[in-house]
């Protein structure tokens, strides 16, 4: 479904990704593990078209994503829930969610249904639906961000550190939600620091270090990998 082949990405003269190749098959939940600054976010930014790779190819289905605008990429069903949330702070929570469905804007009834589903997942948002998103706390905003991504009806959902700054209780819920989304048929690519919880729901995972993929495997093999345990699970 998603295929990176030898992707390089530069910020100025600094090479953040070098020769990254990875794939996610339909229905899979794939986790990216890596320390801070390893390049996880960069992979996502490349996929969703915010940053342009300098070499390689990114295919989504049979479509080449490099060179496409973010808007086109979202339309094709790849939705990115970014690190740092990037909400519309002065707009109400509901409006934020609605805009998540911008590419499906003609389907009013569908949007309403999806919003209700998101409220089902995060009841607090229903209570806060008329508050400006910026007035919510960090964790609540993260929920809005995930909700907004879901409204884009992703075939492939990119989740960048969704548990960052969330209370343990909420983190647990978030992982449950991710698993549920995945089980309902959405392919998920998840970047996480919280390696244990992430691996617990993953099918496969990649380990990325300093812009290189250094390890790849299914859940079991990684959970049992000594190096991984030492570095990311502790």
């Amino acid at each position, binding site marked *: 479904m998603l295929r990176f082949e030898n992707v390089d990405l530069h*910020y100025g003269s*600094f090479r953040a990704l070098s020769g990254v190749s990875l794939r996610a098959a339909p229905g899979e939940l794939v986790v990216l593990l890596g320390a801070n600054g390893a390049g996880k976010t960069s992979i996502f930014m490349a996929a969703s078209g915010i940053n342009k790779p300098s070499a390689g190819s990114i295919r989504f289905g049979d479509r080449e994503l490099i060179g496409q605008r973010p808007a086109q990429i979202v339309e094709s069903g790849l939705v990115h829930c970014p690190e740092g949330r990037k909400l519309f702070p002065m707009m109400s929570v509901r409006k934020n969610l609605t805009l998540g469905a911008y590419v499906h804007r003609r389907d009013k009834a569908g949007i309403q249904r999806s919003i209700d589903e998101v409220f089902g997942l995060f009841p607090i948002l229903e209570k806060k639906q008329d508050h400006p998103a910026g007035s919510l706390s960090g964790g609540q905003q993260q929920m809005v961000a995930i909700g907004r991504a879901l409204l884009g009806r992703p075939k492939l959902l990119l989740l960048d550190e969704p548990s960052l700054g969330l209370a343990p209780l909420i983190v647990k819920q978030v992982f449950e939600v991710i698993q549920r989304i995945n089980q309902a048929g959405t392919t998920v690519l998840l970047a996480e620091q919280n390696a244990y919880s992430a691996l617990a729901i993953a099918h496969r995972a990649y380990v990325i270090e300093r812009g290189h993929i250094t390890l790849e495997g299914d859940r079991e093999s990684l959970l049992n990998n000594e190096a991984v345990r030492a570095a990311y699970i502790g």
Partner: protein
Amino acid sequence: MRLIEGKAGWALLAALALAFPLVAPNNYLISVATLAFIMAIAALGLNLITGYTGQFNLAHGAFMAIGAYTVGILTVDHQVPFWIAFALAGVVTGVLGYFIGLLSLRLRGHYFSIFTLCVSYILFLLIEKWESLTHGPVGIMGIPAPSGMGPLRFDTPLAQYYLVLAFLALGIWVMARIVRSLLGRSFMAVRNSDDLAEALGIDLMRTKTLSFVLSVIYAGFAGALYAGQVRFLGPDLASEAVTFDLIMFVLVGGVGTLLGPLVGTFLVTWLTQSLQFLQDYRMVVFGPLLVALIIFLPDGIVGTWLKRRARRADAVQADTRSHVAVTEAKSNA
């Protein structure tokens, strides 16, 4: 090593400036240069508050007018000797700057900028309307040239050139001291992040006000020199066009660099003088030229040069520490 290089550079500039009148074919070029030096003094001040402290002041030109008018009013209406009036010009702009600073520096970002734009407009209107003090739109004429000091006399273009040059040199020296000291570091801390600066115990208001007052004193002295050089003052000196010119100088040269305002002032002045032949089409050419400069040399001339040098230095270092990647220095004024 770098220090010597810097010193040598400054010495070279000084030598050039000292020798310029000897090679200049006529007084016209000398008076262009004199006026450019005066503007450069004001631009240095603007660079302190905008480039180093991050507060984008749009009233700078008006403060220059305040300095000029102080000299004009005192010398013409009250027969105060030029140099006393000159010193008072600094005092008056400083005091006025202090109060305006207190009022405006509570605002942040664009609010501050546009507020100061309005302050500038109010000052302009005051100069234009307060006829009993400023002579209103009629202007002040007959301002004396700077009076002689001991054996020195300042009534020829050449003497004025060296006089203004001396003040410019003094201005640069003081500025260099400031920005390289702990004080300068406080200014830059405020520019880089005021929240953080405050959390580190830097008194925002005090620091910003100090920088503001210092910067407008530069403008005040520049204005005072202007009065002695042009010898006539009209309210237009306080119009925002002067401020925009100053901003342009700073930006073209390189904001937040010591040399930038100087280079920018000389280059833009030279450009406007050379484009004179275009007459009324001048701005049709100058406008796009300015835009192009901004787009293709965003750090200004000096900024770009410094950055290139920094990158080269970094590249040399990167060889020695292979595992550490170096991103290009981000500039964010």
